[in-house]
C-alpha cells in the first residue's frame, strides 16, 4: 500500500464523446485513474455515469476520443484485468450458485474461487441454491462476490448500492474494502453519496455528460468545509 509518487495511470480517458440520436451523452470526458485508490463517480440519474462505464468496458463504442488501460488500447487484456459489476444483473436466474462459480472459473483466469466460496459461506448460502430462490438483496451480494473475487487491477461497480437495505449496504462496503487488492483501484458510480463518501479517496462529479469537478475527497471537504454529499447537493440543485 506504499504510495509510489510517479505511478503511471491505470486508466486514461481523453476527449471521449458519445451521442445517442443527436443528444450528447458524454461531452469531452478527460479522466485519469491511478493505482491504489477508490474513486467515486458521482452524478444524478441520467448524468452519463453508466454510459461512461459501459464505454470503458467496451459495451458502447464512443464517437470519438481515446481510452487507454495501462497505456494500451482496450481489448482482451483490459477485459481480463477490469472486473465490472453492471447496474443490472446478467446472471441467469434459473441457474444455481455453483453453475455461476463454474462459469466465472472458466471465464476468468484471475477468479479466486476459494475466496468466493468463503464469502458465500459467511452468508450461509448453499452452492446448490437456485438464484431465483434467493432474495434480490442476496442476488446482488452474490454478483458482487463474484466480481470482487477476481484478482483484477480495476474494479468498476455501477450503482452497487441501488435499492439495498442498510445491512446489505454495510456488507457491500465491507466486501469492497476487504477485497480490493494492494495496488488495484475501484471506481464506484452512485448517486447515494452519503453512504459511500467515507471510503472514497477521490471524487469525480459528472453532470450532463461533463466532468464538472474532480479531486481528493479530503481536500474538497476541507476546502468547502462541507461533506461531499453537501457539495454535491449544492452543485446539482434541481
Amino acid at each position: 500500500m506504499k504510495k509510489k509518487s510517479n505511478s503511471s495511470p491505470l486508466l486514461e480517458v481523453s476527449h471521449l464523446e458519445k451521442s445517442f440520436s443527436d443528444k450528447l451523452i458524454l461531452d469531452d470526458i478527460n479522466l485519469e485513474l491511478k493505482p491504489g485508490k477508490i474513486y467515486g463517480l458521482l452524478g444524478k440519474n441520467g448524468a452519463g455515469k453508466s454510459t461512461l462505464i459501459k464505454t470503458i468496458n467496451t459495451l458502447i463504442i464512443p464517437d470519438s476520443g481515446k481510452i487507454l488501460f495501462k497505456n494500451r488500447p482496450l481489448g482482451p487484456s483490459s477485459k481480463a484485468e477490469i472486473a465490472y459489476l453492471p447496474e443490472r444483473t446478467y446472471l441467469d436466474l434459473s441457474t444455481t450458485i455453483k453453475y455461476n462459480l463454474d462459469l466465472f472459473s472458466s471465464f476468468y483466469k484471475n477468479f479466486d474461487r476459494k475466496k468466493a466460496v468463503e464469502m458465500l459461506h459467511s452468508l450461509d448460502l448453499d452452492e446448490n441454491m437456485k438464484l431465483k430462490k434467493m432474495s434480490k438483496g442476496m442476488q446482488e451480494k452474490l454478483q458482487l462476490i463474484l466480481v470482487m473475487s477476481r484478482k483484477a487491477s480495476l474494479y468498476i461497480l455501477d450503482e452497487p448500492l441501488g435499492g439495498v437495505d442498510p445491512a446489505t449496504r454495510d456488507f457491500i462496503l465491507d466486501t469492497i474494502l476487504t477485497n480490493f487488492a494492494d495496488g488495484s483501484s475501484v471506481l464506484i458510480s452512485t448517486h447515494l453519496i452519503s453512504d459511500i463518501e467515507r471510503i472514497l479517496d477521490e471524487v469525480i462529479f459528472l453532470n450532463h455528460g461533463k466532468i464538472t469537478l474532480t479531486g481528493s475527497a479530503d481536500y474538497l471537504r476541507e476546502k468547502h468545509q462541507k461533506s461531499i454529499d453537501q457539495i454535491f447537493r449544492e452543485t446539482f440543485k434541481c
Partner: protein
Amino acid sequence: MQVIQSKEEALHFNFSSGKAIYLQLAEKLELLIAAGTYKPGDKLPSVRELALTVKVNPNTIQKSLGLLEEKHLITTDRTNGKFVTTDRELLKSTKLAIAKKHAAAFLIKMGDLGLKKSEALALLKEVDANLKGTSHEEEI
C-alpha cells in the same frame, strides 16, 4: 463513570462533515491512545483491519497513522506492524494537551453564552455534583 467498550467499538464513530476524515480519525486514535484504550506497547490492528472497523479507505488509515507516527505516539516495526509508544511522559503530555483543549473549548463556549469565568467554574461544580452517583455516557 468509565463506559466500558471494546477497542473495536471505541473506533466506531460518525465523522463530521467539513473536516478531512484522516484528521478526525487521527484525533480519535490519539484520544484512545492517551486514554489508555490502546496501552503502551500494544500492537495496533493492521491497516486493513482498521479500515474495515472504521469503514474508511485504507489510504485514509495510512494517512492518520502517519500523523500519529510524526508525533511519535506510534512506532513502526517494519516486519511486525505498528505499536503504541512506551514513552509514558509523551503519553501523559498528550493526555494533558487533549484535556486542556477540551477545557479551553468549554470556557470559550461559556464565554459565548455570556457567562463569567467564575460562573462557568461554579457551573462545572454544580453539574458534577448532580452527576455523582448516576452513570453517564461520555460524548467526546
